[in-house]
């Protein structure tokens, strides 16, 4: 009980940090450094300009969304290559684990927010397809000794409830990322059943109670108002729907944490510069991981948005955590 009270207090302090940042930036800009673009706005309306973090930088909230957009616009073409290089391919295992935990069945409707290049949606479609194959096999087994007429009549009834039932909607705020995802889908030939929609996680362009599963993989830490994104998730899910979030989290083991920090800050921006020609975007990405709440705190945020049975599991020593909750 006491532990959760402390956590809630920590959250209250963190929320009020916005005001502290304003004061601190105001002091720094007055003490002689005249070229600070982000702090200059402090001179005008400190009360109105709520500030937030962009990596380790402090920026006005309105600016964060723009800057995040620019980051992903720049990295879109090399996003998948960079993911493989940075995680040495392990990100594929994390995403596979998400799908196994999800265990979607044919007929499920998925909304993948911040889905960008489509990794989760593609895996979803493949999983559904393999489930459908298994169902077909199971249905075909008792038919093996039946006469030919019975078998052929069962074929004609099959096609109605086909892959059209399961639908995956990939929603992302960034058009470049969606473009890359669409190209991938077209080249892999799995376009049917996939919808690509431009939208903001804080204000989704969908009606209430539309989806069975809502996923957001490595996207929620880039959202300016995480609580709003969680509430939107609550809104668009059907009752009984599941919220699943895969995100970088806190490494608990101190030795691993130091190795992870060293790797993140020394290696990843270098990889970003060499492969994608963009140091700053990847510097932002590793910093934004540090600014994201840890497993327990994020679990409380999800509970506050109205989800039940919230659980999390950590992968790779806490590098990544999978949070899951239900709308009841």
């Amino acid at each position, binding site marked *: 009980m006491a532990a959760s009270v402390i956590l809630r207090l920590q959250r209250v*302090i*963190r929320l009020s*940090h916005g005001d502290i*940042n304003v004061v*601190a*930036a105001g002091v*720094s*800009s007055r003490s002689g*450094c*005249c*070229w*600070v673009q*982000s*702090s200059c706005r402090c001179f005008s309306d400190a009360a109105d300009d709520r500030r937030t*973090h962009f990596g*380790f*930088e*402090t920026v006005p909230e309105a600016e964060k969304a723009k800057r995040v957009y620019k980051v992903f616009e720049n990295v879109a073409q090399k996003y998948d290559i960079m993911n493989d290089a940075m995680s040495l391919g392990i990100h594929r295992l994390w995403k596979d684990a998400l799908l196994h935990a999800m265990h979607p069945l044919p007929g499920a409707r998925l909304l993948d927010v911040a889905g960008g290049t489509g990794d989760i949606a593609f895996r979803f479609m493949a999983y559904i397809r393999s489930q459908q194959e298994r169902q077909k096999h199971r249905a075909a087994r008792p038919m093996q000794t039946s006469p030919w007429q019975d078998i052929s009549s069962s074929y004609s009834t099959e096609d109605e409830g086909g892959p059209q039932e399961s639908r995956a909607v990939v929603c992302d705020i960034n058009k470049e990322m969606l473009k890359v995802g669409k190209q991938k889908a077209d080249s892999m030939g799995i376009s049917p059943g996939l919808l690509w929609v431009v939208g903001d996680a804080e204000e989704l362009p969908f009606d209430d109670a539309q989806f069975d599963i809502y996923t957001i993989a490595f996207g929620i830490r880039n959202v300016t108002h995480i609580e709003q994104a969680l509430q939107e998730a609550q809104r668009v899910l059907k009752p009984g729907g599941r919220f699943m979030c895969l995100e970088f989290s806190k490494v608990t083991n101190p030795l691993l944490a130091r190795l992870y920090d060293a790797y993140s800050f*020394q*290696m990843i*921006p*270098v*990889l970003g*510069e*060499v*492969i994608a*020609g963009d*140091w*700053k975007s990847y510097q932002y990405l590793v910093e934004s991981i*540090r600014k994201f709440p840890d497993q327990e705190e994020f679990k409380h945020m999800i509970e506050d948005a109205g989800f039940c049975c919230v659980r999390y599991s950590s992968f790779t020593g806490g590098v990544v955590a999978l949070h899951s909750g239900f709308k009841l």
Partner: protein
Amino acid sequence: MCVKQLHSSSSVFTYSCYDGLYPGHIATTPIQKALLAVGSGVAALQNPYRHDMVAVLGETTGHPALINLRDRMRNDPEGYTVLIERPKIRLSTLDLTKLASLPDGSFGREYLRFLEDNRVTPDSRVDVKFVDNEELAYVMQRYREVHDLLHTLLGMPTNMLGEVAVKWFEAAQTGLPMCVLAAMLGPVRLNASRLQTLFTSLGLWALQNGWRARCVLSIFYERRWEQSLADLREELNIEPPPLILSALNKRKI
């Protein structure tokens, strides 16, 4: 101008004037510089048209050579003026109509002809990012800007053979490891006849002139457009090229 990072127990405040010591500067640790040098070297070898990787390789390996260049500039009166006034060659600072009106054989007219024939622009230079000293960063930037002028001074087009010749000159002049590496590996991509040209006449000429010429960064080129090219070459102690290489020979190798 400064970057300060204050770490408190629960959050990090960062306020920066511009990013680092000069606009575009990214502060890097020695480990990062080493990783960048290796990574950019590999990337540049795989794809020599990745100018940004060549640039990064130059910046991360060039510290001693840059110091040497800067000292040579300081010891030359005109070079010292360049270091103080910090001229930059940009399309916005060049008066193209004025250059076009200069007589043939003048440095400015020939430079404009080089830009037109080879379809290049002085604005395509990558900005310096990883040099941790503001003055040395300017020297590096100036070296990149002077590269095109060197093409004009040496009479070399921007095809592979011309670039290799200019790199041999630059390697001999500046000693920048990136230039030396490019000079050694560039010929690998030349066909047999061009290799022969390089090793029999062009290469030797480039090397010899690189060694004996005055420091090419020490010239205030922006004040010398009207000067005749032949005159400027003599002042810099550069012989005219032994061969006329046509820009029409330009094809991707």
